[in-house]
């Protein structure tokens, strides 16, 4: 666990990591859900 400890900057570093990864995830999730919506709509309309 020692390497996970960032000393007095623990809060700042890990919250930065969390926020950055969250942003990346949100971006991809948004793109994927848009894609799913439109493909589902097209399939529903075609059948």
């Amino acid at each position, binding site marked *: 666990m020692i*390497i996970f400890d*960032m*000393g*007095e*900057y*623990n809060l*700042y*570093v890990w*919250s*930065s*990591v969390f*926020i*950055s990864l969250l*942003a*990346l995830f*949100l*971006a*991809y999730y*948004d*793109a*994927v859900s*848009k*894609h799913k*919506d*439109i*493909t589902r*709509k*097209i399939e529903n*309309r*075609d059948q």
Partner: protein
Amino acid sequence: MNLKAIYKYGSPPNFYRFVTKVEPWCLYFGLLLILIGSAGGLFMAPEDYQMGDAFRIIYFHVPSAYLSMSAYATMGFASIIGIVWRSNVAFSVAKSVAPFGALMTATALVTGMLWGKPMWGTAWVWDARLTSEFILLLLYLGYITLHASIKEQKRADRAASLVAILGIINLPIIHYSVVWWNTLHQASTISKLDSPSIVGEMLWPLLVMIFGYMFFFVAVICRASSAEVLVREKRSNWVKEI
């Protein structure tokens, strides 16, 4: 340079097929690079003699900021192509980049604040670089809002493109602001011409992270712009075959 190839990918069905094929490669490769870079930066790189462990935020702050600017450049370039060649594909790309770019800009600002607070005692200061990055966020939000407010598709595309193109002038201001003015933000560590002012073991995770973010960006844009192209072309024949 084979111009014919570019025109070929400008057509929606070819663009869709190309982008759908490319996306998984970029996604997995990008995620892999981000994983390696994070591990290297957070755990393997040695502690900075001045800043302690807090400097590790650089491995997330710099790629986000770098991407926020490249994304805007992509958006501006795609907008120019869309207006000049009236290309639906180009406008789709521009529209998809905007939310990603806004998220990256917000991340860069927030991680910068989290870095600034323990380091220099202040979360925010209105110096040139921070202010122009904030301006970048407003430009993204303006683009997204404008696009959403205009009901008609073509008009929305072209109006929002004008805003995107107008904002391109902000990019050199952000990039060179640390050179032109004395700001609180530190100067560039990586430059194209000089050797970097940062030691090797700290440098490689940073480069890996930047490349990882870039591939991830390409993957997200592939997915989002393919969705956007489908939305615009949903009545045409090639869509029925997918």
